[in-house]
């Protein structure tokens, strides 16, 4: 073969001729016998988490903050996306020293005596010492799981941010009474971010004994907050991976670095009898692909069908090298969800694109400061099953 003919000129569409001394053996390429690839072809684990009949999600609040430009301005002003969230000087941990100069300890010292019984007072102090306190909202949802027996069990996912806003929202949806009556079994915190977690005392005000599940990966400040906020119940730091809770309900902790010095996100899976898998997320920082692929590999679910999804949907934690694929509409398509309730960090424009693309988006009512009907908004509910 002539040296000046390029391989590219003839390799296109070629196959290696079988039986003509193709290198003796393909094993040659792994020239170093010591290299053990971790790519073990494993079968799907198909862990059985049982089934439940129905899950009803009530959106207590998805408006984490009310003005995006204020939030982005604060993050930039404090030094950027890698900065520790407790240093922003956002409420409730304001110390009066201004943007980027806060600390958990100093902020907590000012409000600790009022937690969790007098949140009006605590928030008043926080407002006086924090940066842009009026911008705080929060993310929280009520999950009502109907077991096969017909018995319904209640859980909270996240506890929002602003004490003031979240207390209003809790009262609007009757969460305060449910907590007081000890109807809600446990609080799952999806991740340590301010808008999902810092409103913790609002839950504890009504039920300080509630069991709390946090993903492992919380920072010391976050763990201390649970104590300082007056929690007296059981605390479980859920290890990365699958954790079964009740028949048909499991949580999954994804180890993933997240902006503002947060690590790890816990999402919820439900297996609905005769319907399929339902996924409930806080922000889905692990990315919708990892979220859905994990379910496929880890869980056994009805009809092998992804039935529904609720929550904030992130595509990926970083920009793709091929922008062609950097699109939530494309990412979501392949999983064939039958009911989609999205909000929070999904992006209104993205939700509208789902609708345009014909996805089964359950629209909301755009009440209580939710922006658009494309979102399953504050006070709206969605039922799977």
């Amino acid at each position, binding site marked *: 073969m002539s040296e000046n003919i390029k391989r590219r000129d003839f390799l296109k569409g070629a196959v290696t001729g079988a039986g003509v001394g193709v290198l003796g053996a393909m094993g040659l390429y792994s020239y170093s016998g010591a290299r053990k690839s*971790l790519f073990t072809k494993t079968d799907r684990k198909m862990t059985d988490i049982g089934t439940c009949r129905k899950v009803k999600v009530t959106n207590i609040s998805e408006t984490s903050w009310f003005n995006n430009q204020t939030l982005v301005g604060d993050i930039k002003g*404090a030094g950027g996306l890698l900065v520790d969230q407790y240093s922003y000087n956002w409420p409730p941990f304001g110390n009066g020293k201004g943007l980027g100069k806060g600390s958990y300890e100093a902020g907590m010292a000012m409000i600790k005596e009022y937690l969790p019984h007098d949140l009006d007072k605590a928030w008043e102090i926080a407002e006086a010492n924090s940066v842009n306190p009026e911008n705080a909202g929060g993310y929280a949802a009520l999950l009502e799981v109907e077991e096969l027996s017909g018995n319904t069990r209640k859980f909270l996912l996240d506890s929002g941010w602003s004490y003031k806003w979240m207390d209003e929202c809790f009262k609007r949806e009757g969460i305060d009474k449910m907590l007081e009556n000890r109807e809600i079994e446990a609080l799952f915190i999806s991740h340590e971010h301010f808008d999902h977690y810092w409103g913790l005392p609002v839950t504890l005000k009504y039920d300080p004994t509630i069991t709390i599940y946090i993903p492992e990966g919380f920072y010391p400040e976050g763990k201390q907050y649970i104590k300082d906020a007056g929690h007296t119940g059981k605390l479980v730091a859920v290890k990365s991976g699958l954790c079964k809770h009740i028949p048909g309900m499991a949580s999954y902790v994804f180890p993933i670095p997240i902006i503002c010095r947060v690590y790890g996100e816990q999402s919820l899976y439900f297996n609905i009898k005769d319907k399929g898998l339902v996924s409930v997320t806080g922000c889905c920082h692990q990315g919708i692909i990892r979220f859905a692929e994990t379910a496929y590999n880890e869980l056994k679910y009805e009809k092998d069908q992804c039935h529904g999804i609720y929550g904030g949907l992130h595509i990926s934690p970083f920009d793709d090298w091929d922008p062609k694929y950097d699109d939530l509409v494309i990412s979501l398509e392949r999983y064939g969800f039958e009911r989609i309730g999205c909000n929070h960090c999904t992006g209104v424009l993205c939700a509208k694109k789902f609708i345009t693309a014909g996805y089964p988006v359950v629209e909301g009512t755009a009440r209580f400061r939710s922006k658009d009907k494309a979102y399953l908004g504050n006070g709206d509910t969605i039922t799977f099953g």
Partner: protein
Amino acid sequence: MPDTCKHFFLDSLLPPSVAENPEDAAYELVRAVLIRSTYIPGVRHRLGWCGIHEAVAPENRPGSLTARVNDWPGVFALHPEAPGPGQVSRFGLSYFPAPDEDLVERFSIEAGIRALAPDFMEQVRGFSRHPELTTLFHIGIVDCLKADHGIFISFQARERLGWTARDGIEVETPEGRVQAVSPGGTDQDLPALDIGLAFFRPLAAAFTYTLKTGPDIFYTQKRNAPKSESFLLETREQRWTLGYFNTGTRAGIADFDDADAEEVWTSEMPVPKFCKEEPWWDPDLAGAGHSVDKKAMGISDKPRFILLTGFLGSGKTSFLDRFIQAQTASNHFVAVVQNEVGEKGLDAALLDETYAVTQMDEGCVCCSLAGNLRAALSDILDRFQPDFIVLETTGLANPANILREVDDLDDLFELASITSIVDCLEGSRTLDRFEVARDQVRLADVVLLNKCDLCGSGQDALEEKIRRLNPGAAVHPTCHGDIHPGLLYGVNFRNSVQRPLFSAMGAHATHADDRIETRLLDLSGPINEANLKEAIRAGGEHILRVKGIAEFTDRSGPMVFQYAPGTFRISAFSGDNRDRFLVVIGQDLDTYFDGRSVL
């Protein structure tokens, strides 16, 4: 560095639950460094990354990812392997070349066939589902060690990774059987070390950036590569190691015990010449304290400015919606400025200020100018610190006039693009009828051919018309303005400069009878920078834009040259485009621009 600082910065990468688990910590550390160093586009680009995609396969340990590195056309893949000696966290590194890259010739026949298959890039994206790919395109290994005596990151590869085929290789091609490698000939001969270092450099720079400290030790070791099989090419093998948070001690684990040559640098020594230019040295790269000081990193703090033109109804708003959504998703903030009041129906009561602001859907402010552009833009920058300013013109605006208006504003922002939207249905007629429509296309560097779904057969003719008006612009067909900004402007907003497609343009004007014309200057050798600037200045306001890749007599290497009224920008060009050219856009260039004085 005192221990408290070390813990502070490590803490910000890994929470205690992960850091305290010795088996996982170093695997997770690499992943955390990669993810955190790529959040901010400016930082990411400066470190050398051009986007990352996690190859998700839940049965595998997280950390399998593909990445592109600035100026490399192919894709690197990093995937966790079983731990190396002493429980060092080990990753395999592969490089998947772009099909038209010369390196394809150096890979094995089998790899070459795979690389030229039409679905190759699809397979690369999900490479963890095609484990044979990582073997075929293997380059070297990356090790990370997190121990009491420091954090170490290493890269190890052969200078030449290759082998011969004793019996030769035949391949079946569509044209018949071809002897691809003669018996005893070379199947693969890859400069593996050099390729792998192109990935290791940004990786190590990312460690320096996220750990907020430079390395305390750097050493390279060399040995004769183990010749475990007779068909392997004889070559040297190298291992490069950087250590952080230590006192100049080596990793001591997985190091080459049989090295016969080595170079060692520790922090009290001057940096050796051969590695002075490496990107991993500067502990001040990220600025003081815990803030991301973009200025210290040489990153322009100025927002990027996009001038958006197009006739009424062409789809500017749809495009903007998409643009804002994509930017918001990556934590960017966009300010949209409309240069005429009324189009969006803003509240008239607000308009007694210099400009009025309304909140658009999300992630964006929208302003209507009612007066002084500079005052308004300065104020918008102060109030909102946007990452992007999009100036949306009305359909009838001539971008040339706006360019002149913004010509003294280059201290406020960086002109990133003039993007023009042409309606597929009406575009042809509009271009025939209105000079201003033609000017919008002539001045654009990106043209969107919108409403393609409604167009039918006229699209080719329209595209041809646009190319005749502006052979230098990138033309993208779209529907509803729906196109990812990364496809228009490049990942990190770094699309390379393309030579106009009309190679026959030469130095002749294409539109002698029109008001605005485009000229291509082919450059055969280095040109004089002062002469070029003088010629542009002499043209005054008649020269609207100059853009291209040139070599200058008083600078070394190719440069990207850009001129917009009032601003010259010259930056190093590191792509593989060998064309040297300048595109000049202006009015009556025969009179006002003396191209010969430049050549």
